[in-house]
């Protein structure tokens, strides 16, 4: 048998673990969300030699969305690893690495291929600390681009954040802008517990923001209030923040004062921020792309009505994907909630008496 085998992947010593470069001080730059993801990983890899990256096509190819572009060249084969094509494996070795104090960032190429990771994520990543009463822990990040609207083939458009949100021991984090992608991903990497970091790929390149590459993380476990208002609260996350803000603009134009909350950390949920907003406005629409039934919107809605029933001046509405399978792309637009849908739901809520 040939035991020499392929050793390309982790054997090389050039650009190896020890030779991490000094942080390059880059000043502020206008970048897209996917570039922000890249920047955050590069920053933290320079700062912490325990940070490593693994996944399918993350090496020379730089990831199918280029999120890891240039990282193999800078950090070498030992820290940026193309794995064999096996998602269960990726999740499982990530857990193993994290158990020994590395801070691995695994990429699942599309969220539609994340299901094979679930046993390792639910049974192990989420439980290692608890199972060992704190002796071991699992400081890993599982990144995956998610969501529809990019005319992709089947299985490339899933939004199943609710499945992970239902699992205790995990964090589920979704950025909605380049700035939040940078800050939240840094926080996720540094977080001592496992984080499922879902990147809304529809807005990967839709706009740019100025980012100071200074390694400043944003807080996890809190919602971001993107806009303050008095009449109604719109709650969303990820790519749908785009349509939600558009809807807020239209509503403002027609004279309503709109508060917009980006949930950001889907689980554990910062219900306090949501509650104080809804207690103020008394009206609320929750917007997400995922299917409605047992989606995260249901939890938010349930908590609001449990805890602020008397403040509600109208029933909470959810504007979501249908409880169907995302259609092949020719009809996918019919599945996605639109700005119009949000405006309509908000108007009904505003006019409810």
């Amino acid at each position, binding site marked *: 048998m040939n035991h020499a085998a392929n050793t390309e992947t982790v054997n090389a010593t050039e650009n190896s673990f020890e030779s991490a470069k000094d942080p390059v001080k880059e000043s502020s730059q206008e970048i897209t969300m996917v570039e922000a993801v890249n920047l955050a990983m590069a920053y933290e890899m320079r700062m912490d030699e325990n940070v490593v990256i693994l996944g399918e096509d993350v090496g020379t190819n*730089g990831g199918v969305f280029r999120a890891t572009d240039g990282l193999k060249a800078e950090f070498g084969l030992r820290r940026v690893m193309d794995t064999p094509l096996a998602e269960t494996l990726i999740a499982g070795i990530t857990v193993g690495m994290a158990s020994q104090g590395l801070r691995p960032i695994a990429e699942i190429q599309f969220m539609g291929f994340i299901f094979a990771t679930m046993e390792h994520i639910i049974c192990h990543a989420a439980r290692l600390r608890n199972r060992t009463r704190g002796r071991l822990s699992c400081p890993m990040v599982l990144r995956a681009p998610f969501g529809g609207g990019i005319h992709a083939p089947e299985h490339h458009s899933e939004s199943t954040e609710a499945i992970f949100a239902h699992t205790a021991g995990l964090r589920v984090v979704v950025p909605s802008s380049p700035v939040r992608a940078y800050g939240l991903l840094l926080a996720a990497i540094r977080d001592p517990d496992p984080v499922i970091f879902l990147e809304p790929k529809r807005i990967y390149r839709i706009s740019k923001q100025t980012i100071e590459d200074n390694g400043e993380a944003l807080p996890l476990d809190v919602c971001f209030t993107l806009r303050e208002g008095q009449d109604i609260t719109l709650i969303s996350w990820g790519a749908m923040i785009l349509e939600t803000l558009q809807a807020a603009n239209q509503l403002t134009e027609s004279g309503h004062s709109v508060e917009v909350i980006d949930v950001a950390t889907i689980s554990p949920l910062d219900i306090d921020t949501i509650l104080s907003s809804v207690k103020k406005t008394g009206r609320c629409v929750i917007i997400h792309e995922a299917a409605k039934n047992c989606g995260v919107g249901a939890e938010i809605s349930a908590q609001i009505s449990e805890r602020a029933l008397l403040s509600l001046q109208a029933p909470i509405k959810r504007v979501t994907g249908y409880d169907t399978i995302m259609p092949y*792309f020719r009809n996918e637009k019919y599945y996605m909630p639109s700005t119009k849908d949000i405006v309509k739901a908000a108007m009904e809520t505003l006019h409810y008496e």
Partner: protein
Amino acid sequence: MSNEGRNPELRAQFDINYYQFLDNQGTLKNSLPTYLEDDKLQVALYRQMVLTRLLDAKCIALQRTGKMGTYPSTLGQEAVGVGIGYAMTKQDVFAPYYRDMATQLIRGVKIKDILLCWGGDERGNQSEQTPFDLPCCVPIATQVTHAAGIASAIKIRHEKHAVVSTLGDGATSRGDFAESINLAGAWQLPLVVVINNNQWAISVPREVQTAAQTLAQKGIAGEVRCEQVDGCDVLAVYDAVKRALAHAYEGKGPTLIEAITYRLCDHTTADDATRYSPSDGLKKGWEKEPIKRYRSFLHSKKLWDEHKETALFEQCEQQINTAVQEYLDTEPQPPEAMFDYLYEELPRSLKEQRQQLIDKTREAQP
């Protein structure tokens, strides 16, 4: 510390063999079994490979001009798909992956349907011509497990046909594949699994994917008959699959075939292989490609000439253009179609959502 002086007992031994008839130049290296000395078959295989290649080029063109979605080319791998398609009988069941348009065409799937499928329309999978075949499968390697299930169903029902499933080299790293190979051996399933080893899984080269010298040897894990074949030699592929199917029909169990090819294209139209693939690989790949060598072979046998070639090309172009037009003329499904095949009967709780969608789209149309 080695095993020196331990005097172990030999418990098992395994060989992996490689099969080829035609070399890169189209010269016969090994004589053909009599059943392959069939002019009609030999020409048919050629015609089908050419049709596949021309349709493939058209698909890429459609994608580039915004008339179709992301498409995975079969360039350089036509002999695998065509060899499999011709080796199978109508009764056999096919469980393809996404790079299997060549075989699907032979199975009876219409060109229009293939275009619909990559054009983002589920109706491309509706093909009545293939009542039991699975549609093309995107989640890597899962189709092999379905194929093992179909082969089990055949066995449970005492039927005599078999199942063929395909996958890529990268896909052999997935647990689904290993679990299915193990089951196929344990249950002696009438299953033929063909690996299209095109040397790449998107950007990941075959050698990074696994240390195994051959992918065929992955069959040993489940005691499954396994062999390598030149995947650019359509006769060798056809013969390997025929032999494997005969084995299966006789109740002797499964076979794993590694067909060695080279991906002469980007992974899909969404990929740019120049980012990761050194061009000398591509050059060597072109030297082995299946159509040129096979044309030489047919020429040498006086079964083919320039004239026939021109006629064939014209015929294919026409067939493809007609289908493309049909495809472009196909109206999209109504929006509410997303509800109509979720369940045999739509549950009450979903009727409201369906109606909302209808109302909303009706509103939008003035």
